């Protein structure tokens, strides 16, 4: 091998080595633009920290250092946009530092920074906590240190407030199309699969102007799957628009009572999904659930239910003869009543017309108690006074 060849190969390798940090600076949760000096191992470590938080608490936390905010008007719009795009509206946080050409990289205070906190995460990320994030960024010596400090503080915060962390996960965003439509408490589907399914559900929801949700759990808290699905739907304030139109597929892996599914339909859409129709649509879905093809089951659920949406039902076929049977019964009774005036020869019941009105004198009276009977009926229970949807369930 000639010296020239060796030199060329070495140069290429060096360039690659130089590029690797730039390439490796982008992970799923973190991103540093080319001008930021950060090692690939550091970026990978930061990304892993974010993944751990996501896995443990189902809480997405993003950290981006960018030099271009695209067509967005400001850093605020950019941050919200990129967060929604990546998290599909889950509760979480996203920190963006925008470094444009006018910024002195050595002076952090001149950079634009924004910490976007979703409504559901504000229960933990108070104003004080948010300020601490900003301070941490300003006080850090390197971008790596600031990002590490960011994730460490988030992890510590969630560790200290694990109950509130659960609330953040449970609390839904404002119900608009495009928010997180699939929630998995059991880890049955991977994050990647969940994001793909969320995209699928979002797409069909956009098309139908009706949200299609999926919730995977391992406990029904002592309730039936129908009741749990209804409560879950209403507690999370699911649904699109004023009528809260939506469909929720609840999948429960219960080792004690067996696996079950339930489909809750809100009041506005239950006309499209009768019990019989729902069971028919869920039959192949339940089959896939039984075969442990959970991703396929959710996709099929999305396809089946979105296809059925908008199809107005017609009354069952038996209503045609039943209507005329009822009509005949009413017609017969009414006509019979009308012919009642054909009979007018009726004996007198009493001598009322011959009683002298001013002769009536009331005498003694006595009321004697004979017997008593008490009947009781159980009151109907309702989970929610506003719940007018309906639910159908089954096993798999």
């Amino acid at each position, binding site marked *: 091998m000639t010296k020239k060849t060796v030199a060329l190969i070495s140069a290429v390798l060096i360039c690659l080595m130089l590029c690797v940090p730039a390439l490796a600076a982008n992970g799923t949760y973190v991103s540093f633009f080319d001008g930021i000096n950060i090692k690939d191992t550091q970026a990978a470590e930061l990304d892993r920290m974010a993944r751990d938080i996501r896995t443990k608490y189902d809480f997405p936390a993003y950290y981006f250092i960018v030099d271009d905010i695209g067509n967005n008007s400001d850093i605020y719009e950019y941050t919200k946009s990129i967060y929604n795009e990546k998290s599909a509206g889950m509760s979480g946080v996203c920190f963006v530092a925008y470094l444009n050409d006018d910024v002195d990289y050595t002076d952090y205070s001149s950079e634009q920074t924004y910490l976007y906190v979703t409504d559901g995460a504000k229960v933990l990320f108070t104003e004080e906590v948010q300020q601490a994030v900003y301070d941490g960024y300003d006080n850090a010596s390197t971008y790596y240190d600031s990002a590490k400090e960011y994730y460490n503080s988030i992890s510590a915060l969630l560790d200290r407030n694990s109950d509130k962390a659960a609330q953040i996960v449970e609390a839904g965003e404002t119900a608009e199309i495009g928010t997180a439509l699939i929630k998995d408490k059991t880890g049955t589907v991977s994050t990647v699969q969940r994001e793909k399914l969320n995209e699928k559900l979002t797409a069909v929801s956009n098309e139908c102007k009706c949200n299609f949700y999926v919730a995977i759990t391992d406990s029904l808290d002592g309730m039936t799957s129908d009741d749990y699905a209804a409560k879950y739907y209403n507690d999370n304030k699911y649904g699109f628009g004023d009528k809260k139109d939506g469909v929720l597929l609840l999948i429960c892996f219960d080792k004690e009572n067996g696996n079950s599914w339930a489909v809750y339909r809100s009041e506005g859409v239950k*006309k499209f999904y009768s019990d019989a129709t729902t069971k028919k649509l869920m039959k192949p879905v339940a089959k896939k659930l039984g075969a442990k093809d959970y991703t396929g089951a959710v996709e099929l659920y999305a396809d089946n239910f979105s296809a059925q949406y908008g199809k107005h039902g017609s*009354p069952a076929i038996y*209503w045609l003869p039943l209507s005329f049977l009822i009509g005949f019964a009413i*017609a017969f009774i*009414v*006509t019979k009543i009308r012919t009642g005036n054909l009979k007018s020869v009726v004996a007198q019941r009493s*001598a009322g017309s011959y*009683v002298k009105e001013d002769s009536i004198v009331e*005498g003694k*009276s006595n009321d004697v108690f004979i017997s008593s009977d008490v009947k009781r009926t159980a009151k109907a229970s309702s989970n929610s006074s506003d719940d007018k949807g309906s639910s159908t369930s089954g096993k798999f």
Partner: protein
Amino acid sequence: MSDLLEYKCPCCGGAVEFNSAVQRMKCPFCDTEFDIDELKAAQEDLGNTASEKETEVKSVDEATGMAVYVCQSCGGEIIGDGTTAASSCPYCGNPVVMKGQFSGDLRPDLVIPFKLDKKAAKEALKKHIGTKKFVPKIFKDENHIDEIKGVYVPEWLFSADVDADVVYKGQKVREWSDSEFDYVETSCYDLFRNGKFSVDGLPVDGSSKMDDTLMEAVEPFDIKDAVEFSTAYLAGYVADRYDVDSEQSKARAEERITQSAIDTFMKTTNGYENVSGIEDRTRIELKNSSCRYALYPVWLLNTSWKGEKFTFAMNGQTGKIVGDLPLDKNAFWKSVGVLTAILGSAIYAIAWLIAR
């Protein structure tokens, strides 16, 4: 021996009848009107007892009680049964009264003269039949309305002071709830009530030829219009004497008085629900009771259609008309069919809208 009474007009000698419109005796030939007393006085002045001609009964069938009379106007035969008290000659239309049917103990105490004439009766009957939707059209046309006749029906009038002990069943219902259940308590009571009232002029049909239900259906009659009986009121009408005596009629009177006792004291059971009288345990005692024999006016028409007999009766005092009418089955089922089509379509349309 029965006598025939024919009332003759002193002016023209025509047969005088009682006219319900003017409530006097009126000659249909010369339109002269007479009070009953005036007519009798005029006849006495004339010394003419020709108006009260005594005519022997031509024959009597002992087995059936049918009697044959001879009309003094035309000599025609007038047939009547044992209770016929007033009729008309089938040949000359001369109204006659069988005087013997009202002599002695058979003489009625009271009579309510006809207030409404035959024309009013025919009009009422036409309205009764014509306004009903499901009556066959042929029946409306073929009911021989001109054959309607005025009949004085013998009635027993019961009056008494009533002492009543009435027993009712009643309930009190109480409802309440707790967090889990709704409760309903139903308590049953026997309600004992005592009281008095008076009944005056309760009529019970005294003729076996008249359907009791029909006679009760045309009630009430107002006894205030009743006058002392005179055979003159019967002229121009048909009349029968009683053949069901007061003792036989008393049971029905007591039955109606018992029901009246239950109805009268029902209003004293306020505060109770589902109140009903227990007839078996209700006792009445009649004091100062009296029974009078009266003749009450009824316009009657008998007709038959498709082998079934129909009788129409109108209260000759108040105008109340009753009478069962036949049902046009074709019209009935046609109406049911049309209504079924309309209602069935409406119900299916509602089901369709709900399914949407």
